[in-house]
């Protein structure tokens, strides 16, 4: 009960903070003469009017309300803020320094007989908006991510819960309604299931029975009471991010999760193209890494660069992830690469914006340039999917972000030294 209560309280606080920021801090701005990328297509030489942190109007020839800041886009592209994929920005500062990482839970169960699952583990509680990784991603056009718990040694392949956070540097940045359960299946997770992926289904079945049981579990149980409640919540139509790569495993894991009442999103999906029609039939979306074309392990022998294009042609909704935390900005290159290998350009942009917003339940307020949406916007120096383009300005909820990070400060300091001949 505690966990649920806790979650609810936290959400109320988030909502209160968002109202505050929209009223007091957000700027009003008119962005004029941009190539505006909206859900219905590209508008050339269009204007976007932002008031109270929200998009108030989109179109040609909008008049500038008196006193409003006007940004002359001069034809530059304007997109919604980008999705940084799954990451641990604010959770994992320096991966190899354990004192700075909170990504995963180990209960010290190295043997299956000691297994304890804690699906109530919520990685977002460790989130630190003052992480230096956040501005590094933000000034590259990324305005949100989905924090992901990892399976770590001594833990479980049911890694725990994550959620979307907004890169506005607020302490309560979790976007309500985005909570998701993370489950890692297949070969990568075999060490958590007694050496066979088959046992992943057996263990999941056991946990599901425990979560559904009306009587208290036995001493051999996988779950604690809070874990039973947390899992039960997902069994009632909750969102599950399934990290799985091999075609056979994708099919089986997706079918299992659906039969249990959960809504799967496939993450990774190196061989998803091999089961594209089936995924399309059941409307199972895939968030993939389009640079993945090596047979990195035996689960991904069929990996190929046109995975995204094949899935899209079959009717699967495709988005992007896979660049991790420190270099999350590379996801933009992922999308561009998918285009180079056959994915339509507008579908690739959607895979960084509206599609992930749809998947994580935040589409009512974010992910698109449309009237009523939060003004999370990026003005680009050129094609937003081209690696030589740079984000000129980012807005979150209408507030112009200071385009500065620890990296730009290092750059500026040492550029000065370089210009002076670099006295040591």
């Amino acid at each position, binding site marked *: 009960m505690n966990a649920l209560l806790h979650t609810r309280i936290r959400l109320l606080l988030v909502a209160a903070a968002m109202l505050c920021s929209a009223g007091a801090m957000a700027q009003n701005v008119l962005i004029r003469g941009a190539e505006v990328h909206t859900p219905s297509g590209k508008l050339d030489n269009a204007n976007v009017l932002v008031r109270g942190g929200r998009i108030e109007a989109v179109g040609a020839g909008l008049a500038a309300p008196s006193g409003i800041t006007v940004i002359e886009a001069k034809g530059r592209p304007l997109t919604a803020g980008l999705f940084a994929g799954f990451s641990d920005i604010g959770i994992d500062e*320096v*991966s*190899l*320094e354990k004192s700075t990482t909170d990504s995963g839970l180990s209960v010290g169960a190295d043997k299956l007989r000691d297994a304890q699952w804690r699906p109530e583990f919520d990685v977002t509680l460790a989130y630190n908006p003052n992480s230096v*990784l956040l501005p*590094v991603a933000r000034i590259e056009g990324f305005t949100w991510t989905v924090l992901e718990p990892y399976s770590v040694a001594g833990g479980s392949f049911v890694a725990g819960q994550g959620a979307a956070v907004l890169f506005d540097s607020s302490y309560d940045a979790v976007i309500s309604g985005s909570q998701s359960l993370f489950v890692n299946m297949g070969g990568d997770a075999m060490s958590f299931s007694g050496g066979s992926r088959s046992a992943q289904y057996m263990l999941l079945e056991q946990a599901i029975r425990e979560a559904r049981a009306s009587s208290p579990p036995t001493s051999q149980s996988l779950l604690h009471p809070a874990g039973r409640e947390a899992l039960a919540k997902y069994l009632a139509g909750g969102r599950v991010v399934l990290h799985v790569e091999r*075609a056979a495993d994708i099919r089986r894991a997706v079918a299992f999760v659906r039969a249990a009442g959960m809504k799967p999103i496939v993450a990774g999906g190196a*061989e998803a193209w*091999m089961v594209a029609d089936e995924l399309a039939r059941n409307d199972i979306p895939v968030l993939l890494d389009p*640079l*993945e*074309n*090596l*047979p*990195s*392990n*035996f689960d*991904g*022998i*069929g990996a*190929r*660069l*046109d995975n995204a294009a094949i899935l899209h042609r079959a009717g699967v909704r495709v988005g992007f992830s896979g660049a991790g*935390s*420190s*270099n999350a*900005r*590379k996801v933009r*290159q992922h999308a*561009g*690469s998918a*285009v*180079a*290998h056959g994915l339509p350009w507008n579908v690739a942009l959607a895979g960084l914006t509206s599609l992930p917003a749809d998947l994580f339940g935040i589409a009512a307020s974010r992910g698109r340039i449309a009237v009523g949406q939060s003004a999370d916007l990026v003005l680009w120096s050129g094609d937003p*999917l*081209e*690696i*030589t*383009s*740079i984000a000129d300005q980012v807005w979150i909820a209408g507030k112009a972000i200071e385009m500065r990070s620890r*990296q*730009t400060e*290092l*750059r500026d300091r*040492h*550029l000065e*030294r*370089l210009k002076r*001949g*670099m006295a*040591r």
Partner: protein
Amino acid sequence: MCVSLLAACAAQPDGKPVDAAPSPRTAPYASTYKPASSPPVLIRGATVLTGTGARLDDADVLIVGGRISAVGSKLAAPAGAQFIDGRGKWVTPGLIDPHSHLGVYPSPQVNAHGDGNEISNPVTANVWAEHSVWPQDPGFDKALAGGVTSMQVLPGSANLIGGRSVVLKNVPAVTTQAMKFPGAPQGLKMACGENPKRVYGEKKQAPTSRMGNVAGYRAQWVEAQQYIRDFDDYGKKLAAKEKNKGADKDKDKEELKPPKRDLRLDTLASVLKGEIPVHIHCYRADEMALMLDLADEFGYRVAAFHHAVEAYKIADLLAERGVCAAMWADWWGFKMEAFDGIQENIAFVDHPKNACAMMHSDSGEGIQRLNQEAAKAMARGVRAGLSIAPEHAILWLTANPAKALGIERQTGTLEAGKMADVVIWNRNPFSVYALAERVFIDGATAYDRGRSDAVPRSDFMLGQPGRGVAP
């Protein structure tokens, strides 16, 4: 005849002098690489980045006998030449990755093939990466599709001194020897900083600190110096004995025993002699400066620092010393020594006169798109106010790594007489949308995106799911 300092002439039991420690250039496990035969090729009307800093628009590239014959306009082709319409295309030298672990850490990542680090001792100067290369690594084919025609494959960075690297031509082959770049020197892999002290520190074994790292290198070079002296002394004694032959019968009978040959010290002594260039995994600026002092202390030259995340802080020092730096475009932050990474690193390092900036991958993914990594670095440099044109940035991927690897006389530019290692791109290669359409190695088509019979596929991929040629 003892030309090399190391080949200081030991003697066989019969007393005849032999090379005790062969020079790397005459080493065993020699290259058996043979260029494939090919007709003359004339690429016409392309945008050509020569690798020497020039950009030629509407230019032709003529390949004859596996070599660059000419680059210019309206070139005439010899009889039997194949013509390629280069209009709208860009042509560059074949890309060279100065830092790869293809073959030694191949795909799939299985225990049986994880042969890139000999983690049994912090100093394994005796091991050679080429003895670990699995030529069937599917990663070679993927790198070729990204325009990579040569690469240096190194041992990993677990050890202070990890062993000898090998330079390969990126051709499909059954043996590693058949991939070895003819005449290329081997390199020595050393590693600074966190990795060696972490790997051995966790085993409660030296080194456990950075000062332990440096003490570890120094002890090795001291030994190598002694090894050289021992062979020198032996050589002198042998020569004296030869000279005084017949003067003293007892002395004639006296058996001169050569010093015991040691594979580890063979390598280190070859470095001190200048036969093996040194490549150092080193992130931090202060540690790179220490490693240059170390090189001065023992009198060898550092060819390049690799993963040089902080090289931008000592761009002047690197240029002054003529040391190359191999860098990533934007990879940073995963450990403390990578915490100060900036996207302008390459552009800054490239800025001083005589600089030698290189893009490297260290990754089976990154090696497939070195052009894109360079595009990112170029864009950041330009945004910071530095002037970097594509015809210059291409040097980071071609001429500069060729220089660091000691193969600049054979490849790395489109100058007449060089190996015809050439890439035809479908557009400006400094773009996420750019694809290598055709790759030539020594003038022969090694890769042709449009022809499934000209896209190599390793033995491992045969009969696997996803049959056919996947991009």
